[in-house]
């Protein structure tokens, strides 16, 4: 809380709301064209949308049979990949507005998806939590938890084992390694070409066992990203709770030297409130990164952290749960995917409960 007077204060960035676009169902994932003029949204009603920022209009271009959980535009600028709780990866042609390929990737959900920077690989993670012991320790996987697909052909390139549910995945910028984190706060990293596991790291500080009401685990790693240079891995979620159903774990990220499986830093004491963190994004300047999620108690559910020091340099109560976040490539806009609470039917209609919020970034 107390600032160190000797250290030069990094110039704090800030943001301002520019626009809000409403969706019928919660928006769970977003991506954007490099110019930031078109957005893509994966929604809880299964819909995959293109969104014209200027007009705020959105158009359905594909549908999953369950929640759509991930969406990424390939570098070709027109092929959009989406993933869903139906376990399916879909390829959409954004120009022709149609779905061109579907691949059944998993028996259970695709919890999270990532695409390599060059657009050649898609990684997706799955796994259902099943009791493996008296105290609900997770059982071993029934299907490969981590799969890597060829983005051009849809062919399976590699698969890796983890303890399900494996909830977050990230590819290194060079596309050589894939990292996946699970319910138990365990991160594994593999070399895709060799198929070998490179490292493993686990913490008890991102998961909970319910002492109070529910004897099972909850929490874990909910989002992860590599640093722009690929040397470090960031994971986020929230800290342990005695009653996981309170949802009051400490908002937390952890920075890792992933090659050695070592922790380097984590959200600083006193800079976090409580609530699940499920989105991470680096600013193009690389000087800071964003983490966002839900506010249970505290000051913020969106914050920027200084890359060099790990300090919280900007924070905001963004009012609703943030499910995904990205910076446009010029760094001037922050786009947030949001989920409101679903409201009761009004006049025979279900009110919208999804949002995309666009904020200007003054850095």
């Amino acid at each position: 809380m107390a600032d160190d007077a000797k250290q030069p204060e990094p110039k704090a960035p800030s943001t301002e709301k520019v626009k809000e676009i409403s969706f019928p169902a919660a928006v769970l994932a977003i991506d954007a064209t490099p110019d930031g003029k078109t957005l893509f949204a994966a929604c809880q009603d299964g819909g995959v949308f293109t969104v014209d920022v200027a007009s705020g209009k959105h158009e359905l271009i594909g549908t999953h049979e369950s929640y759509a959980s991930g969406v990424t535009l390939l570098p070709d600028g027109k092929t959009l990949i989406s993933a869903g709780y139906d376990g399916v990866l879909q390829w959409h042609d954004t120009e022709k507005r149609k779905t061109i390929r579907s691949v059944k990737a998993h028996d259970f959900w695709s919890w999270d998806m990532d695409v390599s920077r060059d657009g050649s690989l898609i990684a997706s993670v799955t796994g259902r939590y099943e009791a493996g012991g008296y105290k609900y320790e997770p059982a071993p996987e029934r299907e490969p938890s981590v799969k890597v697909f060829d983005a051009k052909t849809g062919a399976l390139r590699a698969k890796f084992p983890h303890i399900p549910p494996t909830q977050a995945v990230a590819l290194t910028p060079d596309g050589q390694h894939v990292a996946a984190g699970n319910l138990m706060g365990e991160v594994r990293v593999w070399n895709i070409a060799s198929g070998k596991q490179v490292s493993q790291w686990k913490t008890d500080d991102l998961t909970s066992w319910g002492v109070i009401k529910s004897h099972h685990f909850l929490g874990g790693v909910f989002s992860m990203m590599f640093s722009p240079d690929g040397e470090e891995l960031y994971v986020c979620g929230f800290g342990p709770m005695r009653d996981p159903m309170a949802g009051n774990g400490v908002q937390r990220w952890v920075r890792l030297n992933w090659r050695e499986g070592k922790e380097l830093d984590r959200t600083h004491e006193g800079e976090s409130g409580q609530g699940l963190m499920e989105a991470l994004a680096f600013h193009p300047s690389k000087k800071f990164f964003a983490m966002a999620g839900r506010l249970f108690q505290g000051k913020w559910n969106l914050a920027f952290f200084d890359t060099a020091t790990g300090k919280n340099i900007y924070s905001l109560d963004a009012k609703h749960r943030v499910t995904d976040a990205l910076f446009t490539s010029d760094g001037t806009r922050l786009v947030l995917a949001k989920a409101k609470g679903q409201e009761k039917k009004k006049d025979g209609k279900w009110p919208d409960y999804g949002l995309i919020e666009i904020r200007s970034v003054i850095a």
Partner: protein
Amino acid sequence: MRDSFSNLPDPHCGGADHTLHRRKFLQGVAGAGALSLLSWGGLFSLPAFAEQAKKTEKRCILLWLCGAPSQFETWDPKPGRPTAGPFGSIKTKLPGVHFGALMPKCASIADKLAIVRSMKTTQSEHLQGINLLNRGADPRPPFIRPTLGSVLAQQLGHLDNPIPNFVLFDPCPEGNEFKEFKASNWAGWLGAQYGPVRVGGEYKIENVARLADISAEDHEARNALRGFLTKKFENERRSAAAASQNAVFERVKGLMSCAHLFDLEKLPVRDRERYGPAAFGLHTLQARHLVENGAPFVMVANGMPWDSHVFHNEIYQLLVPEMDRIIFNLITDLEERGLLDSTLVIAMGEFGRTPWMNAARGRDHYPNAWSLVMAGCGIKRGVVVGATDEDGVDVAEKPFNEKNLFATIFTALGIDPYATYDLPDLPTFHRVEEKAEPIRAILA
């Protein structure tokens, strides 16, 4: 009353009188009720009769889904609707009837189940809801209505049964409102002897072996002497605390003789694999085993895990398939053993969950329209009664409340649902108030 106390059972004297006096003595102030029970012990000493009695005796297992389970992921899915959630639905053995997609095993035995999709109750907070669905009526202080388990322990059990008449499995020492309920008076005006014996997890039954320095006869005689001295105290002071203590001490000998029935390790590995490996399943297996061996009522709870205000889907992906497998195994095992017709299985919580999802990925409390399932003794097989509207917001057909439910349970078990409690110093209460109708459509 005093005279009977001087005929203390004493193993050294032996003789036929023994059982009779001991039982009178156990009954204490219960009076006339004791007579009907006199024959039980004697009857059960004839093996053939005991075997026959076990088959026809009625019993009940309550899978208590505390915290309140969602109807949408279980018995009343709304595929394609905004309230559906991510899991989808599947066909069942009953034409046109769908369950949540996480319940394939129950779907395959839907023709043995009775589903009520139109429960409509009034309490939306846990403690009030737990009380309502365990006692079957709103509270009327200062009188404490006995729980379903205590009523069934009294109606289906007999005090001489070495196995407790009411066993509660629940491993969670904590648990907010359920913890509060667990610490309350379960047996109410029926008296402490009909309260539950709590086991599971940390609630092991330890100290089951007699110490070497006392003989079996002395062990029993010592307890009888204790009973003689303390029963005077209980009676003279109408001491509820003493009654509660005396009720558990009277269970000691029985428990020591049947402690092996509570030993999970003694159950076949194959069974433990089918029900386990987690606490809820293993405790259900133990419940089945106890019921097979003459326990009239067993309640299986597991904290209050169904209360998914946050991470609803993330929790239900674990809980629903586990419940699906447990109910499937329990029903099919009971049927294989010829016990399904005499055993009532109920799976329910204290209310349902909201059609809408909150901003924390959760569903909140919802008593307005929810589901439960029953099977076995006195229940029609393969029936769905009641319905909700297209989004599951309200009951569309045949709303039922806790009184209808209790009347159904009692009727199914051959117990008069409207009997009057004729106890001294008590206003007139009925087993089910207001002559509430049972849910006839699911009664066999």
